[in-house]
């Protein structure tokens, strides 16, 4: 097609815009200065200074939880009475509190202090800390953690991440921490006001691979010096404890960094969804941590550490996708077009059937990986397959949820647009959480 009058006019306008004229009238500087200011202010949010963590009386050996005793050599999807009790209370909290506050938390990019306080009343933090360190955990409970993540996300994914990030740090310290690390940091999670804490794995590069980190940790005497940039770090401005993944001379490692450390700065870069989690970029500029803050006691498995985060995201996706399904069913039954409910039409009904089919698929792969992890079996392949399936199907469900509501779905009047934005995170997020 030949260029017409409009085309020529646009070309001329564009040429004007890119010419020297802007510079002559002084516009260029304004624009450049604005860009400069934005970049500079990107990393102006200080992290919260941590309380003083003290190691008073570390044992000789770290506490490790064993696989639960209740599983038998049978395929079984039933959950224990205890798990059901936990689910019941988490579900009602998610329904009554999280769902209610979801829109506001998304808009303000923060999970309110009241919600955090109410979440603490569930006592989830105690279940993440072994009994001997003041908690209530007597056996490994990866499956329970997964179900809790699913149920919280059924209320709201963003707030769920804010609630779960500290649990993730506690779970990681329980599973991988040294006796000294557990004594110093883990026991604080069983205190009355447990610290906010978070895990920083993701980095701001296209095609990010958690096994190929650009953040580095160089050994220097009796400390490690960390440099690099992390992204999508939940609670980054509020956390007192960070678990930061960084490349060392001997492969990827994870370091316990206290909030307020010199050179540790959080930025401001709101994302498409999961906004209530307070996720921000995190910059490490020559952050020095003692060598004993490197996570692990010889049995540390970075791959499993990453995969347990991935599975948490899969569980969140399941919860949010269940919300989509629960929402579109009554909507499509009530919404009429051409004289009958739109659900009477196969074009609509089959989309809903596909949501149900793939949601169940997501569950089976995620549950399988988590149940293997809980029992101490290898689960790298299972977690990989779960992520591969879940990230695609979850986004499909998210986009179909909006589609089924049509124009309504595109507005903030209805929650499906938020779920759409939240569900995109599953293909992007690494770390942040740990089952």
């Amino acid at each position, binding site marked *: 097609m030949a260029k017409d009058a409009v085309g020529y006019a646009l070309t001329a306008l564009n040429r004007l815009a890119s010419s020297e004229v802007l510079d002559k009238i002084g516009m260029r500087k304004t624009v450049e200065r604005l860009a400069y200011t934005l970049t500079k202010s990107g990393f102006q949010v200080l992290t919260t200074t941590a309380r003083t963590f003290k190691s008073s009386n570390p044992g000789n050996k770290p506490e490790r939880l064993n696989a639960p005793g209740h599983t038998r050599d049978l395929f079984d999807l039933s959950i224990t009475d205890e798990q059901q009790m936990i689910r019941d209370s988490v579900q009602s909290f998610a329904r009554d509190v999280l769902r209610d506050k979801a829109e506001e938390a998304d808009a303000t990019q923060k999970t309110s202090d009241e919600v955090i306080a109410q979440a603490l009343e569930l006592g989830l933090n105690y279940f993440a800390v072994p009994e001997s360190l003041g908690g209530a955990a007597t056996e490994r409970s990866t499956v329970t953690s997964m179900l809790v993540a699913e149920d919280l996300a059924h209320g709201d994914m963003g707030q769920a991440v804010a609630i779960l990030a500290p649990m993730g740090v506690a779970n990681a310290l329980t599973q991988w921490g040294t006796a000294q690390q557990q004594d110093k940091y883990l026991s604080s999670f069983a205190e009355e006001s447990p610290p906010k804490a978070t895990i920083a794995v993701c980095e701001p590069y296209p095609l990010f691979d958690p096994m190929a980190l650009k953040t580095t940790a160089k050994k220097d005497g009796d400390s490690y010096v960390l440099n690099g940039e992390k992204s999508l770090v939940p609670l980054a401005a509020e956390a007192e404890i960070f678990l930061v993944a960084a490349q060392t001379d001997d492969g990827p490692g994870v370091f316990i960094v206290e909030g307020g450390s010199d050179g540790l700065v959080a930025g401001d870069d709101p994302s498409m969804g999961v906004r209530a989690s307070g996720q921000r970029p995190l910059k490490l500029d020559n952050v020095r941590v003692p060598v004993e803050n490197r996570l692990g006691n010889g049995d540390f498995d970075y791959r499993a550490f990453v995969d347990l985060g991935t599975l948490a995201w899969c569980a969140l996706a399941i919860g949010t996708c269940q919300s989509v399904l629960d929402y579109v069913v009554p909507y499509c039954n009530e919404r009429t077009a051409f004289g009958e409910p739109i659900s009477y039409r196969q074009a609509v009904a089959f989309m809903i059937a596909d949501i149900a089919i793939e949601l*169940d698929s997501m569950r*089976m792969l995620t549950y399988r990986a988590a149940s293997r992890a809980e029992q101490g079996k290898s689960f790298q392949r299972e977690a990989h397959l779960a992520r591969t399936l879940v990230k695609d199907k979850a986004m499909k469900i998210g986009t179909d949820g909006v589609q089924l509501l049509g124009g309504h779905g595109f507005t903030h009047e209805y929650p499906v647009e938020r779920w759409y934005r939240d569900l995109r995170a599953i293909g992007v997020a690494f770390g942040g959480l740990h089952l």
Partner: protein
Amino acid sequence: MNIEIPKKFKPLINNAYQVAQSTLRPISRKYDRGEHEYPKELDMLASVLDGFNEGDPANSAGAATTGSGKVQDDGSIKNGANMGVCLGAMEMCYGDTGFLLAMPRQGLGNAAIAAVANDEQLERFKGKWAAMAITEPSCGSDSAAIRATAKKDGDHYVLNGEKIYVTSGSRADCVVVWASLDPKLGRAAIKSFVVDWGTPGMELARLEKKLGIRASDTAAINFIDCRVPAENLLGSPEVDTKKGFAGVMETFDNTRPLVAAMAIGCAKASLERIKELLKDSMTYDYGKPVDNCSAVEAEIYRMEADWEAAYWLAVKAAWMADNKKANTLEASICKAKAGRVGNQITLRCVELAGSIGYTEDELLEKWARDSKILDIFEGTQQIQQLVIARRVLGLSSKELK
């Protein structure tokens, strides 16, 4: 929660795997080319399978024992006959789907008998090979529209009608025929009858030539004033308009996971073969995010993830049946997922293998033909979607047509 196949099924899986590798694969192409030839090798194999069945029903590798698990209902969790049969069928179809369907005494009719027959009937039909006849020339998925009739006449029912797509219809000893006691009464009047070959008025019309599963004969059978003893009616002879179709449809709760298992087995063959063919050009480390892999690696991982989801959905539906949990929704979910995924995987594997996959030197092209029927029979993909959508939306078949 434990998502693992228990050790007790290992012998069953291994038996079926050995059969698949040693017996089925070597003759797979022979009977694909020689459609309608009787695979005589299967007689020996069927006896071996009967032996497995006799030893322990949970070790069966055929359809005959679905729903027949005589487990004690003590409230504890069971992994029983339904799961075992599905696991066996997966391995057998990994060998050859056509042969599983053609296996003597393992027909879907046997599954129907196992599901709805009374004790007297179970005893009388024991050891018989039963095919299943539902479809008619003008009624496929809409099985409520069956036109074949059964009129009570003394202590017999007189059957009239035309049945098509009867798997192993000519080879079986008898056929479970769906017919209506009174077409005016709709679904509720549809009953199933066991009709022995040799009954006057039962005639073989033809054997179909098909896209795939050619080792399995597909018969068209006519019934002309065919007199069947009244005691061959399965289930209750009463026409209960309230319960309606449910009695007959219950069979599907057991057989849909089984057909899902067949699709899973067939697709496993393709997936395993393509990995073998591609082994020099890729590594499987389940490490890198799929978007960082080569396109073909990513595709294999995606197929494997879909395959694995179908696998566990089928096991879940069978587990529910074993534990007497209502599983109509889950049976349809696993059938829908396995049907679509099985077909997609087998077709894609042909493509990825290039011309090698398309020619008859490899079995990939055969599996891609075989898989298609598994997304059609025992309820097409679209029928499963209807069942699922109605359940999830709480709609009747009048509302969501």
